[in-house]
């Protein structure tokens, strides 16, 4: 009797299981399965869990995850009507897993890269050795509209510029991770990394704690420690500066401030007096020592940058110059993460650190160079072309998906200003299984881990945001263009290099 029941259960599980029709995306490596359809070792545990779950339960889990996001207000508002509809960022219930060995390399690679980028920022705004030594052409830096004249010669606390970085990685067909983009301005997604994990705990009870996953729940405390470490004060007042409730990332701002226990402020709450920044409190003024700002450079100080900005604080740059307030990330970091500078990062690693890059760039053509421009124009159908100052997946051309007219138009744009463009061969993003329409389907994913730099070193959160291109065949993972996200499990059962967790500067 019991045997019959067991057989029936296994029959049901086996035959109705959504993995049955899992097909691979052409020319893409899959995160979960080998090309011979074998389950990869680090996914074994998850597969066992998923095999036990019936499809109706998966539907319920998917529903539960949406409900949890909505109830907790993890939403952005779409103003289609007067009320404003609350939407959630799509979330896929199946976690993405990174093995401990892979993580070890990613972590080392990110620390190395961030160190080099920080040296580059210090150098660019001071002696400019890298230009003098001919590693990066001068107009590359001076022509970037992310280069801030106002930062020239300004000494920032502890020489740290990129306190919070999000490095976008993708996995190519050779199984290696490559850097797609460095986000050094105000990278977002940290709260989603935390929130996605909380949701996983709810929808797969008992799975997270049993799977030897690195814990990320103390990331806000670590971030806070890094933030306060850069102040001269012994008990600094750290605040998070948001543009306000209408900003689409407001949830993230509110969440991070709440989790760190710091005040969430708007520009109108702060003012400058006698070379210090103060906040307007009910009991009087309180000095502000560290500002984790989530507004762009341009809006920071209406007296120095965009005069129309109501989001910033007048004269804050002069306080910054005096060293009386720390701004996180430092203004002007954009010069290091723009798409043209990106191509020089491996050279920076060699130049500043005398090391070989651990994580490599994707092959990138600079269209400002005549030979590379010619090559790109001949091979446009095999290329992804991007504006050097674009972000969010806007203004880019994916050659194979574009019509002849679109290609022609884009070509004209490029020829007007070739320096403003780079090209990369069309990538093969790896795929990971997603639960879509009651089946598991492979979808392209990237990976954004977050790193904090403070006076005591660099910390890479052992996790990150896996973004998913939910459209079939799509390579665009940006949330503004139909992308979703997944929880990312970094396994911690690997002990070869236990001493690299914290590397000092």
């Amino acid at each position, binding site marked *: 009797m019991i045997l019959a029941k067991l057989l029936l259960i296994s029959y049901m599980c086996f035959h109705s299981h959504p993995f049955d029709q899992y097909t691979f995306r052409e020319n893409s490596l899959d995160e979960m399965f080998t090309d011979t359809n074998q389950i990869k070792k680090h996914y074994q545990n998850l597969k066992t869990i998923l095999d036990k779950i019936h499809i109706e339960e998966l539907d319920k889990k998917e529903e539960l995850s949406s409900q949890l996001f909505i109830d907790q207000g993890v939403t952005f508002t779409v103003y289609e009507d007067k009320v404003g509809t609350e939407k959630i960022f799509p979330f896929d219930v199946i976690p993405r897993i990174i093995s401990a060995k892979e993580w070890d390399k990613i972590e080392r690679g990110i620390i190395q890269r961030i160190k080099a980028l920080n040296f580059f920022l210090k150098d660019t705004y001071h002696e400019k050795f890298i230009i003098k030594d001919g590693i990066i052409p001068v107009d590359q830096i001076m022509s970037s509209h992310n280069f801030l004249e106002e930062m020239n010669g300004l000494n920032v606390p502890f020489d740290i510029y990129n306190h919070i970085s999000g490095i976008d990685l993708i996995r190519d067909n050779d199984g290696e991770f490559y850097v797609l983009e460095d986000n050094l301005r105000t990278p977002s997604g940290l709260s989603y990394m935390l929130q996605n994990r909380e949701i996983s705990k709810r929808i797969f009870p008992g799975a997270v704690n049993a799977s030897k996953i690195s814990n990320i729940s103390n990331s806000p405390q670590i971030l806070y420690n890094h933030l306060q470490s850069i102040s001269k004060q012994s008990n600094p007042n750290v605040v998070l500066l948001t543009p306000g*409730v209408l900003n689409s990332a407001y949830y993230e701002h*509110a969440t991070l*401030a709440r989790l760190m226990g710091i*005040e969430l402020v708007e520009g109108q709450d702060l003012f400058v*007096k006698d070379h210090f920044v103060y*906040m307007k*409190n*009910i*009991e009087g003024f309180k000095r502000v020592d560290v500002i984790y700002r989530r507004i762009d450079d341009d809006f920071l100080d209406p007296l120095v940058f965009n005069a129309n900005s109501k989001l910033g604080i007048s004269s804050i740059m002069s306080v910054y110059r005096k060293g009386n307030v720390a701004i996180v990330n430092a203004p002007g970091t954009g010069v290091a993460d723009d798409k043209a500078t990106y191509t020089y990062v491996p050279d920076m690693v060699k130049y500043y650190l005398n090391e070989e890059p651990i994580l490599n760039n994707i092959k990138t053509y600079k269209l400002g160079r005549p030979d590379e421009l010619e090559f790109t124009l001949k091979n446009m159908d095999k290329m992804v072309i991007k504006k050097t100052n674009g972000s969010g997946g806007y203004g880019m051309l994916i050659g194979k998906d574009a019509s002849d007219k679109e290609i022609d138009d884009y070509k004209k744009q490029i020829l007007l200003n070739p320096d403003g463009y780079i090209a990369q061969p069309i990538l093969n993003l790896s795929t990971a299984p997603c639960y879509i329409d009651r089946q598991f389907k492979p979808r392209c994913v990237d990976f954004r881990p977050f790193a904090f730099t403070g006076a005591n070193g660099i910390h890479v959160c052992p996790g990150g945001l896996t973004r998913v291109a939910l459209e079939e065949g799509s390579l665009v993972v940006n949330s503004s263009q139909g992308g979703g996200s997944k929880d990312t499990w970094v396994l911690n059962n690997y002990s070869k290099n236990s001493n690299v967790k914290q590397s000092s500067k």
Partner: protein
Amino acid sequence: MLSRVANNLFWLERYIERSNGLLNLLKANYLSDQDFQNPKSWGKMLTTYCDIPQQKLLIEGSAMEILKYMILDLNNPNTVINLIKKSRENARSVQGHISTEMWLNINKYFLAITKKNIRSRFQKEDPILLIDEILNYHMIHLSTSDVTQERGNAYCFMNIGKYLERLFQSTEFLLSRKLSSVKSIDALEENIYWKYLLISIGGYQQYIKTHKSVFLTEKIMEMIILNPHFPRSIYYCTQKLSLHISRLSTFNKIKSTNDLSFLVGKLESSLFYTKVENLNSMGPNIFLTTLKSDLMLISEQIDSQYFHYINPTHA
């Protein structure tokens, strides 16, 4: 605490309290309408909440139409849906200062009342059940803030918002009823009028227990204005207001002789030394008009003392 945060906490609670009062009023009016159609009492309510009497609605609309309008209309800033929307917006901007439980409830309330099917539910379902369902979010709000909210600055500002709003509501409510014109009542219709009036501010049971079912203007006035144990009475709310204002002064080391404490203290003692006879000899409407301007002064003082602390350019 930031002045902006304090201001948002204050308004978060004012909007919640305002919608609570409105829902109770709607419910009582609807019930009394089932006994006697009384367009006047709807009219008073619409004037109070919508600035201009919505004549068209009154003539053509059934009680149901008015209910739907006052709860769900998006163009009027004082409908329940818009009040809750604003309250939630304020809550969202002060998430770090209110308990998670409180935020979750306000967010759920907002989602429930903006749900697409709510209009059709008013068409099909019993409106009282629906209003009760909505009022339940207020009950949860009141209890979660009691059980989970830290007794600090945030709690004080929320309570000041709550009691000030209640005071304004009760004053408005009494003013619009022109109490002096009604002496003693025995006609059935008037009886029902008073019954639902008391129900709408949640004082019916307490009144019946004290005065049996003899409705006398004097007694009703005494209860709504001077009773120290009725949680919606003017005196009770003033005491609470005064308590939270003095707590704030202590927390923020503000001298107890500041203008705000002075104004509230003055109002509190003058209510303490007012008897129902004084109300009568003074004329209730004069009393209420003076009260209203006192409340305005207090409100302005809260504004200047805590919310717009000092304009930095003048510092």
